C-alpha cells in the first residue's frame, strides 16, 4: 500500500509544476500603469459625479477648452473664442477634430450633450444653472422645460454660441469640465438605450485615448492612444492602464515591484517612504484643494436637546481641536491644517497671484487651537444651557477609507480631553446613509468633505446658503445669502476686487457664528516611478491629465 500512497502526493506536485511553468505576460512599449483609488462608475458625462470618472473621461474626450499645466484655460476643440462686451455671450470657433469613428466634431455635438445633461438633471446639472455657469434658461430646463430653450446654439457646424444670464469670470476654464463635453448624437442614438458609455463598443472618443477595455465598476481599465486625435503629436503613450487599488499598503507593494508606476499612498506608508532615501525622491505632495470640516447641526430640536444651536458650544468645539496634531500625527501625508472655509492652495487671485486662503490667521479670533478660549466658551455654554454634561454623536461615513476613521477617533479623543463634560459617540454609517442623514439634518456633528468643482472660492461658499440642497446644517443667514447671490449676479460679478472682498465678508460670517469647524486641506501623496514624467495635476475639475505623460 505504501508506494501507491506516494501517488497522492505526486499529483499535487505535478499540478504545482504545471502552474509554475505557465508563463507571464510582458509589458509593451510606452505603457503607463496607474493606480485608481476607486472604480469608474460611468463614462456618460451627464451622470458623472466622482473625480475618477472625470479623470478617465477627460483622457478620452476633449471639451471646448482644456487646462495647461499651470491651470490656465487653453483651447482644445475650440480653436478660438470671443466674448461680448457685457460678458454675457461667448462664441466658440471649433477646429477640425474627429471622433474615433471618423465623424467630424461639430457644434451640434455640444448642443446635444448640454441639452441632454440639463434634461437628465442628475447630480452635476447644477453646474449649468445660476450658481455656476449661469447659462440662459438652464434652471427652467433642469426643472423640466423644453431643452431647446437652453442658451446654447450651433450657428453652423463649427460655431457655437453660448448666452449667459450674468458674466462669469471663470467661464473659459469651466469649459474644460467634463459636464460640458460633447457627445456624438448619431452614435448615441445608435446604441441601446441606457448602455451609452458602458463598454468600448458603446463609447467613442475625440480625445487623446480610446477605450480598449472597460465595464462599469471594473477594477482594470485599459486605454489606447487615439491616432485620429487632433493633437496626436502631444501624446506619447501607446497604452494607459488603470488598476483600482483600495489599500495604501497594497498600492505601495505594487509600486515597489513595478506593477504600477503611479500610485497614491497615505498614512504610515508615507512615513515609511520618507525614511527610505531612494524612494523618498519619487515622492510628491499634491494639494488636492478639498476641505475636510466638521458640520454642526444647529436644529434646536435635534435629538440631543439642540446643544449645538448654542454658538458658544460650537465655538468651544472649534477651538478645542488641535489641527496640527491631527495632520502631523495621524494623517502624516502633508495635509495642511486649515482655519478658513476655503481650502489652502486653491483659487489664486488673478491680480496678485495669491491663493484665496493664503492668510490662515484671518479669522483666528474665532477659529484656532486655543484651550483657554475653548474652555471659556464651554463655561458660557454650560451656563446658558444650564447643563454640565453633554453627549454628542459624530457622524461619518465608514467606507471612505482608513484616514477618516483615524481622524474621527483623534477628534473624539481631543474633544473629550479638552472639553470636560463633553463625550463624543462615534456613529459610522455607509456613505449612502451618511449622505441621507447629512442632507436631512439627522446628525449632531458630522465630518464632511467637499472637493471643488471649478476654480473659484464660490464652489465652497455656495455650500452654506439657505437654498443649498444638501449642507444646510439648519442654519440660514439672510446677510450671507445676499452676499453670495450678489457675487454671481451683475452687481459684483464684473468687479473683481469687490467680489473678492465680499467673499471674505461672507466667510467671516461663517466663523463668527461657527457654522463649521474646518479641519484640514487634503493633500495627495503620489509616488511616481522615475521613468515617468509629464503628468499634470489640477486642484479643481479633472485631477490628473495624461496627455503629455511620457514613459522612458
Amino acid at each position, binding site marked *: 500500500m505504501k508506494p501507491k500512497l506516494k501517488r497522492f502526493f505526486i499529483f499535487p506536485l505535478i499540478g504545482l509544476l504545471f502552474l509554475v511553468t505557465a508563463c507571464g505576460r510582458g509589458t509593451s512599449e510606452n505603457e503607463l500603469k496607474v493606480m485608481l483609488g476607486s472604480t469608474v462608475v460611468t463614462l*456618460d458625462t451627464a451622470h458623472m459625479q466622482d473625480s475618477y470618472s472625470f479623470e478617465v473621461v477627460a483622457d478620452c474626450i476633449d471639451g471646448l477648452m482644456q487646462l495647461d499645466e499651470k491651470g490656465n484655460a487653453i483651447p482644445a476643440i475650440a480653436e478660438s473664442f470671443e466674448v461680448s462686451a457685457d460678458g454675457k455671450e461667448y462664441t466658440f470657433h471649433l477646429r477640425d477634430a474627429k471622433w474615433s469613428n471618423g465623424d467630424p466634431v461639430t457644434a451640434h455635438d455640444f448642443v446635444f450633450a448640454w441639452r441632454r445633461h440639463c434634461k437628465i438633471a*442628475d447630480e452635476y446639472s447644477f453646474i449649468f444653472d445660476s450658481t455656476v455657469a449661469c447659462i440662459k434658461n438652464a434652471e427652467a430646463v433642469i426643472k423640466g422645460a423644453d431643452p431647446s430653450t437652453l442658451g446654447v446654439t450651433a450657428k453652423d457646424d463649427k460655431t457655437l454660441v453660448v448666452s449667459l444670464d450674468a458674466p462669469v469670470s471663470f467661464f473659459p476654464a469651466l469649459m474644460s469640465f467634463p459636464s460640458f463635453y460633447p457627445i456624438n448624437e448619431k452614435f448615441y442614438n445608435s446604441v441601446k438605450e441606457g448602455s451609452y458609455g458602458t463598454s468600448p463598443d458603446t463609447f467613442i472618443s475625440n480625445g487623446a485615448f480610446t477605450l480598449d*477595455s472597460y465595464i462599469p465598476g471594473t477594477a482594470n481599465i485599459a486605454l489606447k492612444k487615439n491616432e485620429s486625435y487632433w493633437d496626436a503629436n502631444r501624446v506619447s503613450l501607446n497604452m494607459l492602464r488603470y488598476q483600482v487599488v483600495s489599500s495604501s499598503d497594497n498600492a505601495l507593494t505594487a509600486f515597489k515591484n513595478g506593477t504600477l508606476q503611479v500610485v497614491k499612498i497615505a498614512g504610515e506608508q508615507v512615513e515609511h517612504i520618507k525614511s527610505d532615501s531612494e524612494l523618498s525622491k519619487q515622492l510628491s505632495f499634491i494639494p488636492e484643494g478639498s476641505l475636510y470640516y466638521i458640520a454642526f447641526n444647529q436644529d434646536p430640536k435635534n435629538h440631543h436637546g439642540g446643544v449645538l444651536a448654542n454658538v458658544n458650544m460650537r465655538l468651544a468645539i472649534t477651538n478645542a481641536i488641535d489641527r496640527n496634531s491631527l495632520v502631523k500625527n495621524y494623517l502624516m501625508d502633508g495635509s495642511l491644517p486649515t482655519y478658513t472655509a476655503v481650502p489652502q492652495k486653491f483659487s489664486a487671485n488673478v491680480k496678485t497671484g495669491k491663493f484665496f486662503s493664503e492668510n490662515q490667521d484671518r479669522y483666528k479670533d474665532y477659529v484656532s487651537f486655543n484651550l483657554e478660549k475653548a474652555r471659556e466658551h464651554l463655561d458660557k455654554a454650560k451656563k446658558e444651557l444650564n447643563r454640565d454634561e453633554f453627549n454628542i454623536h459624530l457622524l461619518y461615513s465608514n467606507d471612505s477609507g482608513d484616514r477618516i476613521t483615524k481622524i474621527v477617533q483623534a477628534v473624539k479623543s481631543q474633544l473629550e480631553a479638552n472639553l470636560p463634560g463633553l463625550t463624543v459617540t462615534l456613529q459610522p454609517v455607509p456613505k*449612502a446613509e451618511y449622505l441621507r442623514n447629512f442632507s436631512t439634518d439627522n446628525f449632531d456633528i458630522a465630518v464632511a468633505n467637499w472637493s471643488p468643482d471649478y476654480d473659484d472660492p464660490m464652489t465652497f461658499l455656495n455650500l452654506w446658503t439657505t437654498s443649498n440642497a444638501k449642507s444646510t446644517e439648519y442654519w440660514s443667514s439672510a446677510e450671507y445669502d445676499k452676499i453670495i447671490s450678489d457675487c454671481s449676479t451683475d452687481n459684483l460679478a464684473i468687479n473683481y476686487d469687490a467680489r473678492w472682498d465680499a467673499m471674505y465678508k461672507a466667510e467671516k460670517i461663517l466663523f463668527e457664528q461657527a457654522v463649521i469647524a474646518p479641519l484640514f486641506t487634503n493633500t495627495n501623496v503620489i509616488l511616481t516611478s522615475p521613468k515617468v514624467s509629464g503628468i499634470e495635476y489640477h486642484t479643481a475639475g479633472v485631477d490628473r491629465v495624461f496627455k503629455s505623460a511620457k514613459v522612458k
Partner: protein
Amino acid sequence: MAKYITKRILMSVVTLFIIIFTLFVLVRIMPGDPFPVERMTAEMIELKRIELGLDRPIPIQFADYMAKLLQGDLGNGTSLYNGAPIMPIILVCMENSFKIGVMSILFGSGVGLMMGIAAALNRGKFIDRFCTICSILGVCVPSYVFMIFLQYFFAYKIPFFPYFFDPSNFFFSAIMPAVSLSLISIATVARFTRNEMLEVLDSDYVKLAKSRGLYGFKLIRKHVLRNALIPVVTVIAPLVVDLLTGAMVMEKIYGVNGLGKLMVDAIAGEGIDYNYVLALSILFSSLYIGIMLILDILYVIIDPRIRLTAKEKV
C-alpha cells in the same frame, strides 16, 4: 420517485418565489438612499423616484418586477452605474467569479481528498498527523491573512505571479486568488474525507471484503472510496455556492471584478441599488436552492434508504 422529484422541484420554485418576495421587501426598507447625491434638490430626487416607479405601492412594484424577471429581464440599475442594464455587467462579474471559483473548488477538493485519503489510510502515523495539523491550520488562519501572505511572497518578494488579477491574462493571474480561496475547502474536505474513510474502513462489509482476501488499492477503490465519498459531496456542495458567488475580501485584495465586489458596491457603495441587490441575491439564492435540490434528488437516486423515508414523507 418521479412524483417525489416533481414535488421537490415544485417546492423549490415556491421557496424561491417567497425568497424573492422577502428580499424585495427587505431591500426596500434597507436604510440608505438609492440617490446618494450631494448636489441635487429634493424636488429633483422626487422626480427620479417617480421616474423609476418607486413611489408606487410595493405589491405593484413587485408584480411589475416579477413580470419582467420571468421574461429574463433583470432591469436597469436604480443608481449604481447610472441605470445601465444590469445583465451585461452581472455576466462579466459572474464569469470572473465562476472561473476563479471553479478553479479553487477543483484545486481545493482535489488536494483535500488526497490529504484525507492519505491520512485515513495511515491512521495515527506521521502523514495522518501532518494532514490533521494542516487541515486544522486551514480552519484557524483567516483566509484573508493567507491571501495577503501569498500576494506578498509570490508576487512581491519572489515576483513570479502577477500582483493583481488581469482578465486579459486570465489563467495565470487567477492562480493566486484561486489557491488562496481553496484553503478552507482543502481543510474541510480533508477532515471530512478522513473521518468518512475511517468509518467505512471500520464497517462490517469492508471487514468482510478483507476476509475474502481483498487487499490494497482495489479494496480502497471499489469498496471504501465509493461509499466514503457520497457524504463528502454534501460538504462540497455548500462550499461550491460560497466560492462561486465570490469572496469579497479576495476580490478587494487582488482587484477582481467579481460578484462579491458588485454586491458590496450595490449595498455599501455610493447608494443602495435596489435592482442590483435584488438581482444578485436572486442569483445567489437560485444557486443555493438549485444545488440543494440536485443534492436531494441525487440522494434519492443513490441511497435507497433515503428513498424509503422520502416515500413515507410524500
